[in-house]
């Protein structure tokens, strides 16, 4: 059983209202060290066999065509989760 992780983040130029709200809450809970927060999405795609280069390419294609909306988001990482 293999697992591919696809990380999707809001584009840098898009205001991230959720991240901003989280950034506002952190200092109230004693975490004043963090200047800003951006919130994204992590997808875990499981396959029956081993993770191949073809599977990683397919995961990237799925990430760009379905899992993210290129108008507002970027696929920032596609990798095998070996844990």
């Amino acid at each position, binding site marked *: 059983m293999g697992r591919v992780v696809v990380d999707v983040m*809001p584009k840098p*130029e*898009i*205001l991230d*209202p*959720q991240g901003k*709200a989280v950034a506002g809450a952190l200092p109230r809970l004693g975490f004043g060290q963090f200047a800003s927060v951006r919130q994204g999405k992590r997808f875990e795609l499981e396959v029956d066999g081993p993770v191949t280069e073809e599977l990683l390419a397919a995961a990237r294609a799925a990430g760009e065509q*379905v*899992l993210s*909306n290129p*108008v*507002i988001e970027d696929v920032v990482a596609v990798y095998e989760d070996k844990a």
Partner: protein
Amino acid sequence: MTRVGVVTFPGTLDDRDAARAVRLAGAEPVALWHGEADLKNVDAVVLPGGFSYGDYLRAGAISRFAPVMGEIVEAAGKGLPVLGICNGFQVLTEAHLLPGSMIKNDHLHFVCREQVLSVENADTAWTRDYSAGQHITVPLKNQDGQYVADEATLDELEGEGRVVFRYVGWNPNGSRRDIAGISNAAGNVVGLMPHPEHAVEAGFGPDGANGPRTGTDGLGFFTSVLHSLVG
């Protein structure tokens, strides 16, 4: 009689109100089902509001792949009038029938209010019963209503007169350039976040000039498409 299809996805909320608006405008509403690749020979289509497929992934993202959407994209390319309201607008952007996208309201709160809009373009299939610059009041209710697109796209929309509605008085969600609704280049596909189908019958709409709940400013969307098809 002119037949206007109203699509129901799992999680659609406003299909009954949209069908009622079609009927009050003088057309026959036809129920269309997300799982059937069949437009039942309708003359126009409304994608109503709600939370199709629970808004999972992104608002409108999964609906885009519903069997009925393939038919709608193809027919829209041939000139079929299509109106996307709220979640329907989000579906139209995900289906690439309209540019840009919607993200969470800048203030993060769900908004439900009576909203004044300016009709910027009264030449589309869904707005020709209005006049350019006219102010109308219809309900607005959404969480992911902030319209975003890159500057080049926004300039193109403005330059081609494809900004169809703008928020007046208050921008309720942080939308770029106060944009409430847009159209495709041909003007047959229109999407907007506010809800004209909730302002079509005295007694149930927003407050109007003749008293509380008398506002019917949204009815013009549905009579417009009738006149577009007949005339």
